[in-house]
């Protein structure tokens, strides 16, 4: 009926913007089923409504969000907690890391896992590439620690943190470390230590790759 159509034709914009109340929406959708003209108008204008969500300022979600979502999706996914390096630092560690999200970028072996970096070094990032039981940790945009301190890699085995290699990043901010025998490790972590390295980590890790 023409008058019926005229009444609903006004609602097309409100319908696409979800600005009809429930009763009006249901009535409009009933009308749509029988009105080619309104259907065409909805489809004509829909692209404009569809892009609205993408118009907002783009910000990055915290890594814990992905970890939380994936833990629900895949309950069997190993949920290894970040190791507690020193009890005294436990409280301070809460909320310190951006998160413990792990991106499995490849298959089982070789595979590449995104590293999670402390929010104190916001531009830094990196990944761990594992192949045949050994791995290469690559980091970028890491602060140069100068002459007195170095970065140190730790391999987590259960509750133990086993010291591995130290490395520097120099002016480029890039670090690359080859690690052997990591097949049994539960995680790879990086701390900042005095030159020469340490036997026990002196701080919570600033780079974490739980495995």
């Amino acid at each position, binding site marked *: 009926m023409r008058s019926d159509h005229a009444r609903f034709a*006004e*609602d*097309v*914009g*409100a319908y*696409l*913007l*979800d*600005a*009809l*109340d429930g009763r009006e929406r249901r009535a409009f959708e009933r009308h749509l089923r029988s009105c080619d003209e309104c259907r065409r108008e909805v489809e*004509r*204008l*829909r*692209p*404009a*409504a*569809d*892009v*609205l*969500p*993408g*118009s*907002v*300022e*783009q*910000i*990055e*979600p*915290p890594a*814990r*969000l*992905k970890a*939380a*979502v*994936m833990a*629900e*999706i*895949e309950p069997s*996914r190993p949920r290894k907690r970040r190791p507690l390096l020193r009890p005294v630092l436990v409280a301070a560690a809460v909320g310190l890391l951006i998160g413990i999200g792990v*991106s*499995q970028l490849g298959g089982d072996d070789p595979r590449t896992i995104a590293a999670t970096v402390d929010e104190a070094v*916001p*531009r830094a*990032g990196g990944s761990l590439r594992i192949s045949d039981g050994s791995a290469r940790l690559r980091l970028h945009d890491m602060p140069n620690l100068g002459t007195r301190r170095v970065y140190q890699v730790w391999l987590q085995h259960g509750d133990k943190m086993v010291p591995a290699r130290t490395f520097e990043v120099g002016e480029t901010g890039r670090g690359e470390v080859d690690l052997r025998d990591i097949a049994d490790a539960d995680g790879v972590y990086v701390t900042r230590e005095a030159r020469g390295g340490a036997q026990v980590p002196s701080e919570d890790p600033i780079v974490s790759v739980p495995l």
Partner: protein
Amino acid sequence: MAGDIRDLADEEVMQLVQRGDPRAFELLYDRHGGAAYSLAYRLVGRQATAEDVVQEALISIWRSRQRYDQTRGSVRTWILGIVRNRAIDGLRRTAVHERRREPLEGAVEQQEAPERTDVEVARREEARTVRGALEVLPAEQRRTIELAYFAGFTHSQIAELLHEPVGTVKGRMRLGLDKMRRELAEGLA
């Protein structure tokens, strides 16, 4: 040799999701999680609430993954639509005068995504393009669209807020969308 799922289009990835493949869902998160979070934050104005909204929305998407119908729109539109609905449901439960149209926390600048990946570059570019199309609208059309889409007001609530007839408000919504559509089409031409 099996292909890399990262080379697949969203609609193909969604087919894997519908078969229950968590890796495929993870890939959708990697592609659209940032846009989902950005949208939720714009709508609710608080980071913790935005995280809750996105988490609940994505889990509901996983559980109702069989309902996705590609003839009714892209995967991205579907995901962001569900995120918006979840956020607006929460907003609509709050009193009208408490609803805000701008983020409550002023930390957006600090968190703006560094342009690191193609996905991030693309969505920031899209955001700029769509904001450009919104900005050319007459102020009253833009305001009406924003009150509806980002604050979750119905046309009659907007009419009341702006002291305008309902027909005027509905007309601005339709005209605004039409002008945006033309702007975007010209931008792509």
